């Protein structure tokens, strides 16, 4: 394994140290427990947005802390969910009294840790809503699995909810908005190469010189199927059609009911994308793929969407939710409406998204 690190055990801490030094005007870092938070937190009367997850997906989530996006991010060990004490301390630090929205990617570890954090926060009289992101169409059913994983839509939800919080939305409104973004977003990814985690030191899975892994998550786990290497256009077509042809998706999630003060089960159905929809198209590098190749993908994506009558009215092209050094890409399509467009366009000032 060749990486620019000192020791597998110090990667997360040293990354955080570097971030704090590089962006003192935007963020601060709290150590033990670790979390990154807005330099100017808490913001009076503003709902605080917190996210978190295993490390190794940089710039997500820490790179998205700042005005108009996250108030705090809780990084776990590499590819391991962070712990409730991080989330609780972060909530205490950034909560202004208007409550906290936790944006949680749907992995059993993240979900359970954020649920415990919510219970702890609620017991300290912090209003909390946990909203799940589960947008990965590579996972087909929700009955016989943990349900769809949270991938690309997470970044978009963080941006959009962050802007809504900035505009004065209250916790219930933001929770509804976040649920909408999740319902409107669908993603699919693929890998040319496996990533290598510092702890293991060798590729998580082996891919031959002419093989690709399709339907991967973001933790180096194997994907839905292994195929022979294809051209960028063919790969784009495959990913895009997986998203466009994905049927209605229904699952039951557990959410905290702020009024009854109890967990309750909620059944959510996401309608498929359809002709005439306006979307945000997000082409993402898994980390090792250069931006030039993302533009080649984007070019084909535009062509396919045009043919299918889907209008791309916003886009994001770059490395935003990654798997360490993995080569590959993911595509996310998020159906937009006026509300989402407004909050997508709103200013954002974070280390890795800034306008």
């Amino acid at each position: 394994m060749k990486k620019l690190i000192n020791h597998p055990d110090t990667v997360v801490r040293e990354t955080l140290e570097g971030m704090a030094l590089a962006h003192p005007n935007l963020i601060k870092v709290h150590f033990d427990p670790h979390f990154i938070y807005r330099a100017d937190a808490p913001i009076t009367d503003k709902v605080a947005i917190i996210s978190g997850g295993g490390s190794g997906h940089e710039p997500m989530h820490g790179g998205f802390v700042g005005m108009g996006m996250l108030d705090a991010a809780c990084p776990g060990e590499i590819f391991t969910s962070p712990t409730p004490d991080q989330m609780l301390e972060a909530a205490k630090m950034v909560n202004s009294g208007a409550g906290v929205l936790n944006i949680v990617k749907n992995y059993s570890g993240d979900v359970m840790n954020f649920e415990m954090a919510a219970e702890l926060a609620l017991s300290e009289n912090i209003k909390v809503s946990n909203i799940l992101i589960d947008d990965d169409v590579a996972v087909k059913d929700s009955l016989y699995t943990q349900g769809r994983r949270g991938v690309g839509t997470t970044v978009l939800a963080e941006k959009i909810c962050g802007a809504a919080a900035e505009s004065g939305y209250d916790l219930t409104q933001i929770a509804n908005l976040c649920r909408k973004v999740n319902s409107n977003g669908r993603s699919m990814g693929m890998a040319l190469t496996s990533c290598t985690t510092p702890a293991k030191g060798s590729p998580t899975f082996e891919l031959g010189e002419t093989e690709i892994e399709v339907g991967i998550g973001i933790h180096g786990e194997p994907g839905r199927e292994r195929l022979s290497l294809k051209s960028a256009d063919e790969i784009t077509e495959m990913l895009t059609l997986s998203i466009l042809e994905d049927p209605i998706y229904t699952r039951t999630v557990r959410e905290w009911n702020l009024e009854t003060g109890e967990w309750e089960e909620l059944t959510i159905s996401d309608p498929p994308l359809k002709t005439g929809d306006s979307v945000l198209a997000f082409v993402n590098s898994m980390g090792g793929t250069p931006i030039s190749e993302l533009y080649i993908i984007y070019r084909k994506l535009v062509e396919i969407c045009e043919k299918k009558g889907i209008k791309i009215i916003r886009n994001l092209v770059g490395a935003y939710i990654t798997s360490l050094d993995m080569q590959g890409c993911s595509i996310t399509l998020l159906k937009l409406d006026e509300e989402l467009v407004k909050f997508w366009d709103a200013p954002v000032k974070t280390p890795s998204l800034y306008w």
Partner: protein
Amino acid sequence: MITQKQLLQWLETLVQVFNDHKDYLTELDAAIGDADHGINMSRGFQKVGEKLPTLPDQDLGNMFKTVSMTLISSVGGASGPLYGTFFLKASAIAAGKHQLTDEELGTLLQAGVEGVIQRGKANLGDKTMVDVLTPAVEVYQKAIAQGDTIKEALVKTVATAEQAMKNTIPLMAKKGRASYLGQRSIGHQDPGATSCYLILKTLGETVEG
């Protein structure tokens, strides 16, 4: 009856056990998960080890609460909240006590299992730690009710846990990370079921003396 000393001994041994089985559990997790279960458990029990000197002065309730909080704040992943909840529920049963009757130990384990199920929503057969915990604790309680000594009951418990652990091999995972693999999860032993077995086995050995 099981004394605080024995329970402390159990925890102390677990620190060593998870250090020794770090690579083994991680390899199991590499096959159907993300190759970190051993790392997570050993990191967590390492931290428990650091807390050991402070535990003898507390009652069992606070002792298990400390274990719970330590695991919750250091394991992460799926197993952190699950084992954390197990010990949190246990601590409620053990509150104010410095030893447990055989029946109380059963009630404590039972509460722990219920906490894990509540937290993780796994059903029997989903290929998780629940597949070991549920039958093992059931066997313990039945044995004590039948008049077995704690030693006898734990021998049965550990045997049941071992078999249950092996029984996860042919299952298809429906919860946790392994569930994404669908059919491909068949043929591998569940890492969380394995760490559960190790915990119960160590308990048995501790009481055995």
